[in-house]
């Protein structure tokens, strides 16, 4: 029994990290409707930024959010303006080629400038853990989990109650109608991309205390974040959070009780099943949000 609870706890903590990485993608994917294959590289860049701030200025990884988040917000806005905007009205394949290209470019630039070494930030809390009734809880993962929860709550209220948030939701539901209602769609795209990148960067920063940083560290996150976002439903922040936890728990149980080598296969199988039965995702907003940007 204890093992089951321990596996569940580990899965939930892992899922919290997944949710955190995916919130930003939900914003970008939901609002701008672009399949950004360079999403993982944004995680990678923010991890490197955090690493260098620690390495050069001895800044605590958690403190470095005050620098990393604004920088990555600006990066996101620039990315939307310079890369995404010019290709927004082109075909889906064009968007895929472009963002895959950017992803490879960023990986190789990281390789040239920062080398292929595996870099880690060693902090006092990197490997610390709590023990509650024989259940072990890793502290940095718990921090990431709480940050994910907090981010979801903030974003949820922001989207629900502010004018800007309402405009973003209107764009998610139907960008043509939103435009007709007087929403400046392009400007909101810039903001959404910046905001999305910023939340992704938060995920990257919180990964640093327990994960190594290297040029291809972001690669597994790109696909994973898509699964989480589509499973949770476009435009649904709580959906992303729950889907993240779900994937984390499935991975943890599948890895422990079936085989560690098969854990990805298990959650992809579940993902395909869900898409067949509920294409808009578990918590999707119904018709119109089921598409995955392929238009």
């Amino acid at each position, binding site marked *: 029994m204890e*093992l089951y609870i*321990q*596996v569940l706890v*580990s899965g939930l903590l*892992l899922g919290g*990290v997944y949710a955190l990485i995916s919130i930003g993608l939900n914003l970008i994917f939901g609002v701008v409707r672009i399949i950004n294959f360079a999403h993982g590289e944004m995680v990678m860049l923010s991890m490197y930024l955090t690493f260098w701030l620690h390495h050069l200025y001895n800044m605590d990884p958690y403190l470095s959010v005050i620098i990393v988040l604004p920088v990555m917000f600006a990066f996101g806005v620039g990315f939307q303006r310079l890369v995404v905007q010019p290709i927004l009205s082109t075909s889906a394949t064009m968007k895929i080629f472009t963002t895959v290209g950017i992803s490879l470019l960023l990986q*190789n630039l990281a390789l*040239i400038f920062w*080398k*292929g*070494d*595996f*870099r*880690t930030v*060693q902090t006092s809390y*990197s*490997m610390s*853990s709590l023990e509650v009734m024989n259940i*072990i809880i*890793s502290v940095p993962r718990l921090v990431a989990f709480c940050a994910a929860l907090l981010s979801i709550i903030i974003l949820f209220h922001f989207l629900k109650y502010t004018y800007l948030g309402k405009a973003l939701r209107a764009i998610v539901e139907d960008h043509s109608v939103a435009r007709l209602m007087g929403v400046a769609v392009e400007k909101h795209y810039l903001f959404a991309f910046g905001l999305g990148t910023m939340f992704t960067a938060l995920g990257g920063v919180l*990964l640093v205390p*327990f*994960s*190594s940083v*290297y040029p*291809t*560290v972001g*690669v*597994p*996150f790109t696909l994973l974040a898509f699964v989480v976002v589509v499973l949770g439903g476009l435009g649904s922040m709580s959906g992303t959070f729950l889907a993240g936890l779900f994937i984390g728990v499935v*991975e*943890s149980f*599948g*890895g*422990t009780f079936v*085989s*560690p*080598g098969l*854990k*990805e296969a298990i959650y992809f199988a579940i993902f395909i099943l869900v898409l067949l039965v509920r294409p808009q995702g578990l918590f999707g907003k119904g018709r119109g949000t089921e598409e995955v940007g392929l238009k």
Partner: protein
Amino acid sequence: MKRIVGLLVVSHMFLVTVFLGGAFGAETLEIGALYPISGGLALLGEESWRGAEIARLQRNKAGGIAGMEVVFAQGDASTVSAARSEAERLIEQKKVPAIIGTYSSSRCMAASEVAARKGIPYFELGAIANAITDRGYDTIWRTNPTAADFSKAQVDFISQWYAPKLGKKPSEIRVSIAHEDSDYGTSVADSFSELAEEAGMKIASIEPYAANTNDLSSVIFRLRKADPDLVVAVSYANDAILLARQAYELKLKAPIMGTGGGHSLQSFAEALGEEADGVFNVDFTQYAINLDFTPGLNAFYALYKKTFNEEPRSGHSLANYMGANVVFDLIEKTGGSLDPETIRKAAMKLDISPGSTATGWGVKFNENGQNTAAAPLVTQWQDGMLVTVWPKAAALRAPIIQE
């Protein structure tokens, strides 16, 4: 970019060759040196080349081989297919009578095949896949130990030191294997479990996982459930760190023993801090070792620092330095001839006992061209340093079981 980097490296090597050579007459002996010096394996590929280069510089200073100055014709095995075409180029255009290399097993397999078909001797100084000397070619020699030797060293260490230390017989020892699930991890895991079972040990569980993962907690839970006396890990760099970190966090009791690769890198110790201490690893000869067992290691170390202005980045250069010296000695014995049959006769006569080369390896080639007197050593992280702990003759310190 790859090409530019490759070009720079090659031209740098050329300059080193030009400036440091020059004391000889017209007679030179040009040997192909084939390593990945650009692309994904460039770091340790170039590190390997540096070892051979130092052996070459040292040899030329001492009068060369059979009175001839040794020169390297450089090839870049950046990919498997590049290894093949570069071997072709070195033999056809550069007319080299022999090739040394290669660091990577897959590149060696491809390049040595080309050389074998053309009847050119191929000397492997660093790749470990068993298959390299198991294919029945009689123009291939390998100076370094094989993957099977790695497993053997591991099994010997466990049954001769670790089991008695726990107060158990080898047959009472239960070992779990956690390995990354590509060719490398799977084949090492296979050969280990085979040898371990022959020695009477019990394999408690085998846990394959994908090396690019960002969470290994499920592997740790399975290991906790299997409750082995020791975990043998076959990992690359990132997963070695992740496995050790999560093992500590999730309170895995059994100690971890690595198999080359990730567990030797400085970044492993940096990531784990004090928690790296106690981790065992089996690898090529490292620098913190009993110097009586490795005559010439200090001279190599000093020459390396003087030539390249930095510390060696791994033991790969040392292994290639030792291997290149064996090759040079061999050619000296044949009077400069690289005819495969002459080389073969001279090679079979070589008999150097362990403990008399810079890596501590002996030299005794078998029919397949494999050096059977070379063995990897067991190291352990102690006080942030990777020290050699076993076998006794090579050990700088005694192995310890970390509490």
